[in-house]
């Protein structure tokens, strides 16, 4: 088995601040994802990376940057945190199969912006 680690678990930022969230997986999966989860809403795709050195925008990419440093790691940057923003950011990975494989999720990073 494998595991997805997300750091930090809790992130408190100030309005306008640039914040970085990190994700590591040891499944040796090719594809990695960043989702945003808001209370009462489903997961919304921010960025995904099909393989190392690839980067694709999701439906919610505005206000975010991403970086796939190596096969096992995928970072997400909130370019300018919005006041009163609260959400959970979930990282996921899957084997490269064309998008119908099971996704494995990390425990999430909870963001609060003061």
């Amino acid at each position, binding site marked *: 088995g494998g595991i*997805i680690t997300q750091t930090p678990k809790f992130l408190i930022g100030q309005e306008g601040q640039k914040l970085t969230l990190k994700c590591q997986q040891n499944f040796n999966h090719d*594809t990695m*994802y960043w*989702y945003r989860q808001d209370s*009462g*809403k*489903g*997961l*919304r*795709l921010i960025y*995904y990376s*099909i393989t190392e050195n690839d980067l*694709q925008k*999701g439906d919610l990419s505005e206000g975010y940057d991403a970086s796939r440093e190596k096969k096992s790691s995928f970072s997400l940057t909130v370019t300018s945190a919005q006041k009163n923003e609260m959400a959970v950011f*979930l990282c*996921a990975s899957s084997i490269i199969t*064309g*998008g*119908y494989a*099971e*996704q*494995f*999720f*990390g*425990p*999430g990073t909870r963001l609060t912006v003061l």
Partner: protein
Amino acid sequence: AQSVTQPDARVTVSEGASLQLRCKYSYSGTPYLFWYVQYQRQGLQLLLKYYSGDPVVQGVNGFEAEFSKSDSSFHLRKASVHWSDSAVYFCAASMGNYKYVFGAGTRLKVIA
């Protein structure tokens, strides 16, 4: 536009009772379909998935789901729920293009 709808935001059932959580999808073709569960403050875990074939698929912990093309649905069922089944359940779909669309989730509460 492609979408997944879970019409019930919250469901409360008694322990030992049967359960059905509803999921409807809107796609031009037949997507790949998934049910995930999220326990408090954890990531999502796969319960079951459907690609093709027998419309009733079995998952972990006694869960099953039934695909209906005519109804564009993929409802989740369990014959007898346990208090530990209390969690948020997400239905998801993909057309094989790396983009998964998730429903808003159904929060299940199991009471004694």
